[in-house]
């Protein structure tokens, strides 16, 4: 065995290698699509049972899907979902169930608003500055859970649930004690000091599509490159797939947990910035909430894959965008939440079944291929 042989191995055509990859992808995509379809069918039945016309609802959704304004809204609403799903997926790839994105995103949004408002910079620097402040704040909050898990063995589910609650209280306290800004108008809508205009994220399409979409795209691409293409990402995934084998190969589990929580927090800190930099320009008690939890569902439906997450995020964004128009048709807008929920249920069930079916089929086919190869080899198992 020489190095040369590694670099230039004897060429052997392996037919069907690409086929294997493609098939696996098709099974994954197929099962997710079926899950979405099933969710729509069940929701339709629910509508019918409650005396609403499901076809009217679906044709309204069709209208929404073909309306350019509504498509911008879909993308706009999808952005925090996608960002939050990426944050969740980074840790999910390591086998952690990190539900702390909610707290991390609030921390990121709050500190970005506060610190960003007291800094004066030209826009070309101010926008990145606010983004960096947000992600560092998110990362620090996420790192607490990572530290607790590594040093004290605290389960990340427990610690992140608690940190979510703590984040809310800490932010409320900080806001009320230190950062309420009196603009002198006597308005009841108390907020932090407004960000200078240099920190506002410009719209790409006026009032319809915010420039933050570029940040989202960059994050998704970075997620793909780091987690799916880099050596670090390989080690992260290996540690999630078989922690013991990863440990045996010399990968430090503790280091992976800390890094994954930190990176996840970096991304989580960005979730609320579209709202901050593109819409509100300040932080107030009327802040958005729940993105951290919706992101878990989006990551689940998207199977933690960047393309899957974007598709699932757009679907959820679309359903949110369709909520208003449905209400006008006297169809309860909560039906979109029902569809989201049922989608998640059915994706868990259907993808599980599809994976088992695929595993069985692959195993059988590999065994058959080997017999065709004429080995006739038979093995004695323990």
């Amino acid at each position, binding site marked *: 065995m020489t190095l040369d042989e590694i670099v230039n191995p004897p060429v052997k055509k392996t037919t069907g290698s690409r086929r294997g990859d493609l098939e696996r992808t098709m099974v994954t995509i197929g099962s997710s699509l079926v899950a979405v379809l099933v969710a729509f069918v069940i929701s339709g039945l629910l509508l019918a049972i409650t005396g609403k016309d499901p076809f009217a609802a679906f044709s309204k959704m069709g209208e929404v899907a073909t309306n350019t304004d509504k498509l911008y809204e879909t993308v706009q609403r999808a952005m925090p979902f996608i960002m939050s799903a990426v944050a969740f997926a980074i840790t999910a790839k390591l086998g952690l169930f990190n539900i702390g994105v909610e707290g991390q995103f609030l921390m990121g949004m709050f500190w970005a608003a506060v610190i960003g408002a007291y800094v004066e910079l030209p826009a070309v620097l101010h926008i990145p500055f606010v983004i960096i402040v947000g992600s560092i704040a998110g990362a620090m909050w996420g790192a607490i859970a990572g530290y607790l898990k590594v040093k004290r063995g605290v389960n990340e589910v427990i610690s992140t649930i608690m940190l979510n609650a703590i984040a809310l209280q800490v932010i409320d306290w900080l806001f009320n004690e230190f950062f309420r800004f009196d603009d002198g108008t006597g308005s009841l809508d108390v907020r932090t000091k407004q960000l200078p205009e240099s920190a506002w994220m410009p719209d790409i399409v006026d009032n319809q599509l915010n420039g933050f979409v570029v940040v989202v795209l960059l994050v998704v691409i970075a997620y793909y490159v780091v987690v799916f293409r880099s050596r670090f990402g390989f080690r992260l995934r290996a540690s999630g*797939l*078989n922690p*013991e084998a990863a440990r045996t190969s010399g990968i430090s589990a503790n280091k992976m947990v800390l890094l994954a929580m930190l990176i996840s927090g970096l991304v989580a800190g960005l979730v609320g910035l579209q709202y901050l930099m593109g819409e509100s320009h300040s932080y107030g008690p009327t802040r958005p909430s729940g993105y951290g939890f919706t992101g878990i569902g989006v990551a689940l439906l998207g199977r933690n894959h960047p393309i899957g997450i974007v598709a699932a995020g757009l679907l959820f964004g679309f359903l949110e965008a369709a909520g208003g128009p449905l209400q006008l048709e006297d169809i309860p807008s909560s039906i979109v939440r029902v569809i989201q929920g049922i989608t998640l249920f059915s994706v868990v069930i259907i993808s599980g079944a599809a994976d088992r079916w695929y*595993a069985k089929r692959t*195993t059988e086919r590999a065994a058959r291929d080997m017999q065709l190869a004429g080995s006739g080899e038979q093995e004695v198992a323990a």
Partner: protein
Amino acid sequence: MSDDLAVELIGIEKRFPGVIANHDVNISVTSGTIHAIVGENGAGKSTLMKTLYGMHRPEKGRVIVNGTEQNFKSPSDAIDAGIGMVHQHFMLADNFTVTENIILGAEPTNGVRLDLKAAKRRLTEIATSSGIEVDLDALVADLGVGQRQRVEILKVLYRGAKILILDEPTAVLVPQEVDELFENLKQLVADGATVIFISHKLDEVMAVSDEITVIRAGTTVTTVLPSETDQKQLAEYMVGSELPAGEPRTTEIGDAVRLDVNGVSVGAGGDGGRPAVDDVSFSVHAGEILGVAGVEGNGQFELCQAILGLADATGSVIFDGHDVSSRPARERQDLGLAYIPFDRHTEGLMLDSSLWENLLLTRDNDPELCPHGFVDQAAVRAATVATISRYDVMTPSETVPIYALSGGNQQKLLVGRELDSGPTVLLAAHPTRGVDVGAQSSIWDKLREARDAGLAVLLITADLEELLALSDRIIVMFDGKVNAELSPSDATPELLGTYMTGGAV
């Protein structure tokens, strides 16, 4: 001995995808006896017992229990027929008491309330009549291994089992505990129970059984009485021929010491106070295979973890002249340390991942495969294809998930991954465990080739044939210590057996 047959297995065949685990198995177990089933690791003993216990269904053959043909669909059917199984790995809840563990799943009630008193009364009766003594109120967490095993046996008896299957019950026991277990088993049999005892330890089998059935390569070879055979003959039945003399090698052992282990100790993991590895020293030269014999669980695993840098250890590990005692695992591997793990599924492979990702697992520091910190998929796949063809791995392609391959082919890829990383020292733990004969001989050939090219190998194996076929020197581990060192030409199963059980000559 009465002539009633407690269990009859006729023509059993059990297949898994690509594998025939059992075929033409015929066993008759007489009621009220201890019947041993012996065979090497991977001979198909456990598969057969799972068939009898209803954990899976055979493709062919008949299972007859107490004269009635049975078609078990699940273990609960087998339990109803009076069969109980004590697994090798205990299945007990640590923070329950002994009584609670035993009644778990079959709780006696008066009305709706759990009737612990009645349970304890019955348990005390069972314990007294069988002579199996254990404190019924103790927490399982506080019990030693031998006592836990007694809890498992009581549990099986409590469910009304008359036929007990014990899967390698002595693997985890110290000699005194083994003696106690055998006393218990004899008492049980005297009270009318039937015991099926699985083992690959010949001295124990000879000591305790009334009849012995030998399994080799998935099928029954013969059934003999202990009075009509001896250990050597049993060993021959197990391996199929006279024990092979180590094949004479044509290359010389090098002078350079590649691996030098000095006074290495590893603390016990939690329960029990004794260290798992106790002051072990040895060295391995370039081009040498040092065989480590020993009953599993005598510190071999912890020794490997210490050498790999994965366990807290004292003493020094010197690797090709570098003292790596305080270096992290990855650095040791980068210096040329490779490892074929004890259990490929838990320590070695990512079962859901493709072959090429599995190849990358221990090789991702190779700049050819991961230039500048990014995975060069094309290069990794090419390297995988090369390993596949060189090690004759039967697979449709390098992209299929590795669970689709048979155990032998998974192992060949794993061995190829480690040998192709260009190591100077290889820790090979059970390199051919659970693989077929063809894969075994090809793995042996590859190990010999690598040895001839100068690789230093520490070979840990429970397979005497493998030990004798490959080793240049043999050390025997017992109870965390090196109990003996000998040359393969001096090794006999009896001698090794004595050393492996702590004896001296």
